[in-house]
């Protein structure tokens, strides 16, 4: 069976990557794109060699859609897709308010459509190995979790919209909290119960937090910190990182998702990394297509998105109140 798929908005920095992956799959027909910004959408449609359609026309001609919009418009796009009976693969975070996140979950449930999130880390082979090791009991009972998910500020955050609160809903905490929180939840099955956030802004010309350091407690009493800052210098050798160290009563395990890189030095351009490991996004799309075809929940579901959104919102509440806060789910 061929799944007919369209893109709802082309605002996101990952749009080109998803378009290429959709075009490459034999079991997917990449039908077209739509966008609030017709000019941006038409340019993207031309780039991908697909049709640009009005939202209702696109939704009438696809089985599933990828929401590549700004963070603050996810609810509107998902609700219109659900109304049309279209399954959704949605960029993260699921929403920028708990109200929107709940509305999205409810709309998908009521319409009987599946929603998955664009969260690639559970499809990283090193992360899967780490989960296998954890589930085999190699580290015993979890006590400590320490994660990082840092990135360059340049490119996507300065020239795009992800540092503009009206579109992004926040800064580094909105952008970079969910990946490692999801990884911890997925590997350990524990939930975040309390958050204390340390935000700061170190770059000139940035209106949101670019420093995002979180201290959390997990449902089994374990302690968990996460640095999800946009603090990597432009000359750092990679776009960012995604690491997690889990310490238990019988040992510890560490995963460095993007460690499989060559070191490349070029005259006049400095040092950077060339990734050679398996591409997590391929597995992400594979899982979504399979989930739709077999009527099951995608690996990272709307419910996961809701829970991770709740943690993100708690970070902002903690920053505002200047104290640790319980996560409200």
């Amino acid at each position, binding site marked *: 069976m061929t799944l007919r798929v369209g893109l709802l908005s082309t605002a996101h920095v990952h749009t080109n990557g998803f378009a290429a992956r959709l075009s490459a799959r034999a079991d997917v027909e990449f039908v077209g794109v739509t966008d609030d910004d017709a000019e941006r959408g038409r340019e993207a449609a031309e780039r991908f060699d697909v049709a640009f359609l009005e939202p209702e026309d696109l939704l009438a001609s696809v089985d599933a859609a990828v929401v590549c919009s700004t963070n603050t418009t996810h609810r509107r796009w998902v609700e219109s897709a659900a109304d049309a009976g279209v399954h959704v693969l949605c960029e993260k975070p699921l929403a920028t308010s708990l109200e929107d996140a709940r509305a999205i979950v409810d709309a998908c449930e009521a319409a009987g459509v599946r929603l998955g999130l664009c969260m690639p880390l559970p499809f990283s082979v*090193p992360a*899967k*190995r780490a989960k296998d090791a954890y589930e085999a009991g*190699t580290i015993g009972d979890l006590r400590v979790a320490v994660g990082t998910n840092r990135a360059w500020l340049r490119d996507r955050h300065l020239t795009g919209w992800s540092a503009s609160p009206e579109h992004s809903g926040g800064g580094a905490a909105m952008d970079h909290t969910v990946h490692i929180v999801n990884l911890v939840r997925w590997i350990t099955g524990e939930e975040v119960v309390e958050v204390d956030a340390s935000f700061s802004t170190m770059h000139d010309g940035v209106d949101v937090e670019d420093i995002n350091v979180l201290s959390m407690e997990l449902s089994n009493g374990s302690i968990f910190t996460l640095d999800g800052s946009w603090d990597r210098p432009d000359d750092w050798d990679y776009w960012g990182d995604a690491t997690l160290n889990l310490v238990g009563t019988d040992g510890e395990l560490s995963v460095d998702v993007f460690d*499989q890189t060559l070191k*490349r030095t*070029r*005259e006049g351009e400095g040092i950077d990394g060339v990734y050679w490991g398996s591409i997590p996004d391929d597995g992400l799309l594979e899982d979504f297509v399979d989930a739709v075809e077999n009527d099951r929940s995608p690996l990272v579901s709307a419910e996961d998105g809701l829970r991770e959104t709740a943690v993100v919102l708690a970070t902002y509440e903690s920053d505002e109140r200047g104290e640790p806060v319980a996560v409200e789910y």
Partner: protein
Amino acid sequence: MVRIGILGRGFMATVHALRYADIDGVEVAAVASPSGPTEFVSEYAPEATAYDDAVEMYDDASIDAVDVCTPTHTHRELVEPAVERGLDVLCEKPIERTLADAEAMADAAGDAGVTFMPGHTLRFFPEYAKARERIREGDIGSPGNARLFRQSPFAEPDTWFHDEEKSGGVLLDLAIHDFDFLRWTLGDVEHVFARRQRWDDHEYGLATLRFESGAVGHVDARWPNRPDLPFVTRFELSGDDGLLEFDSEDVSPVEVYSTTDEDGPSRDPIDEPLEKDPYRLELEAFVQCVRSGDRPPITIDDGLEALRIALAAVESAETGRRVAPEEVAA
């Protein structure tokens, strides 16, 4: 269903059998080994019929292709009767111990019109394939210096690898991985100069190469008889516009320290955290060629040329002079 007959029951036969089991439309239908593969079959290929004799397997088992995982010096005598019967062949590297035997085998395969793919697995290792891709895209400019390192400690003493007559030693059996990669990436070799040291079942080989492009290569191949040492590979590929570096010791995307389990994930190349490991990719490529009859991604000429470079290194180590691959006598 593509039906494979495996020759041998050693380490590489095991690696291959486990991966065939994961590939759709392929079956290990038979295994032959003069020392009796019954135990191997029951453990790794339960559907297969066990044979003591390869030719008996060719005639008796209804197979499409053979996968030759036996000691190097046995390849010709096993491959010739296989190709005469129209069987396609995947043959472990080096394709043979001597150039004469390799060329005779290549002629037989050519006459029979079958697919023959040498198992230069390194071409399917994504770190090496990515480096070659980046070089071809111009990332380092014009390549000038290529430095490669490969350390493969012996797990056990006194194997056929230790017998120069059978394996050709470290310069033939181990360094050939890097020789093939370099030829694939930088082009043909003008000459090789090599030195070798052997003591107490350790063998170390150092080869310097001059490429026709003008580039220089250095291959450091090590067989320490020290199971406590790690398996390590490294490369540094420099050009007039850049440099690509890899060190397997720097790559550890997953690390486990456990009081309950002494051995965490290893850094063994057969256990790299990848969606499909290089051996799986190699076998899939071969099976695809068996099905389609397409020219294999690694040809028998590639296998012959890699063998020439490695034999030139051996000859250089023995004679103390530079040896051109085309000088190697059959």
